[in-house]
């Protein structure tokens, strides 16, 4: 486990099971309104098996979809009871694929709209705004850490790190989180209304040393940028993290 994430496997990345299904349908130019369910199910399961063989993390939703596909396949093999009534309309309603098709069609619409937003984003990135000075990394005499020295932060960090080592985490393959992503997550937690987080709370959910280190680096970076500040009321007391007034230059939409 020491050399975890030493290699990376590049596979087509799918946003989720619907994305994968759409890919399979488009690739073979199948009619989305008349999906050959047995064929698609087989291909879908093959893909899921590949993910497993490679020991890649897979969202639980992929397995739920696998079950759904197999269920639809089974139902399509059964004779439709409503066919005996001679009501064609009912028989059509009873197509086991109907719900899946509806979801695929809806997802496809939003995937297309996301692509349009992406195009707009790219276009707009070609023009630059004039950025007011306060928006940048302003160097000022303002001290973001109030009553908390870097040393104290590092001490608190070491405690968290020690608690991780004790746990002896077996095999935890999680999404690789970058410092930037973690910074956003911390800011999100602060903005979500809690306003303030304890130091220890920041590391909740971190399982590996690497994750703990990343979280700590993210915190230091946020402090450096003046986006958060730390407070410690009493010596050896709890360190609390707040959103910094100075670093918040955005309006509220």
């Amino acid at each position, binding site marked *: 486990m020491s050399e975890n994430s030493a290699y990376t496997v590049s596979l087509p990345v799918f946003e989720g099971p619907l994305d994968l299904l759409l890919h399979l349908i488009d690739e073979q130019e199948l009619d989305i309104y008349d999906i050959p369910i047995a064929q698609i199910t087989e291909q879908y399961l093959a893909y899921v098996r590949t993910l497993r063989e490679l020991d890649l993390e897979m969202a639980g939703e992929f397995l739920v979809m696998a079950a759904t596909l197999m269920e639809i396949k089974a139902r399509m093999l059964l004779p439709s009871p409503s066919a005996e009534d001679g009501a064609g309309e009912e028989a059509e309603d009873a197509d086991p694929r109907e719900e899946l098709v509806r979801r695929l069609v809806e997802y496809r619409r939003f995937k297309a709209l996301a692509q349009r937003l992406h195009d707009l984003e790219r276009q707009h990135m070609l023009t630059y705004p004039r*950025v007011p000075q306060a928006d940048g990394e302003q160097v000022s005499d303002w001290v973001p850490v109030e009553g908390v020295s870097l040393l104290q932060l590092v001490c608190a960090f070491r405690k968290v790190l020690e608690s991780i080592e004790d746990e002896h985490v077996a095999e935890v393959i999680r999404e690789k989180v970058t410092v930037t992503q973690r910074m956003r997550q911390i800011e999100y937690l602060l903005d979500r209304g809690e306003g303030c987080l304890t130091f220890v709370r920041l590391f909740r959910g971190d399982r590996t040393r690497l994750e703990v280190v990343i979280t700590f680096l993210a915190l230091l970076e946020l402090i450096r940028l003046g986006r958060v500040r730390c407070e410690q009321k009493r010596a050896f007391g709890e360190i609390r993290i707040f959103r910094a007034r100075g670093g918040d230059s955005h309006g509220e939409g």
Partner: protein
Amino acid sequence: MRVRQLRAVLEALLFSSGEPLSAERLAEITRVDVEQVRRVLMEYAEELADDARGILLVEVAGGYALRTKPSLAEYVGRLELPRVAPLSNAALETLAIIAYKQPVTRAEIEEIRGVRCDAALATLLARRLVREAGRKDAPGRPFLYVTTRQFLEYFGLRDLADLPPPEEFEAAAARDQVGTGEERE
């Protein structure tokens, strides 16, 4: 205030703000009639359209803002100014759903995407492209999400009506109509 002076004042305001300013706000600051502000801004925009000028007056997020011309991106890019990273696919999909279906809950977004959206939503919230807007009157009282002014700014949109028309919706709706028509026959 003379027109020439008004134009200079408006230019100074837009330059110093960096953020879009509405015609109303500009009128309030200059104590000039809104219509006159709009007229002078139109003239100013024409002036800037000249090839010898490097910036543009754009209408975005319900206001006016100055931005560099897209044709000059190559040169401005060499400054290597800090810029935000483009949004991931997951974030864009989540954002598209919020933009076109707002207000919408996380469960509704996840229903459409078929996967959890925590991370994507956290990114969008942290970048202030979306925000919480009350809670839905449903079990669990989940948060409702809407897009923000920053969303319009980020994509260079005047307002929500300026979003690309969802042709896919219309095409699909038309197809559904045909479908039901056939059934009735």
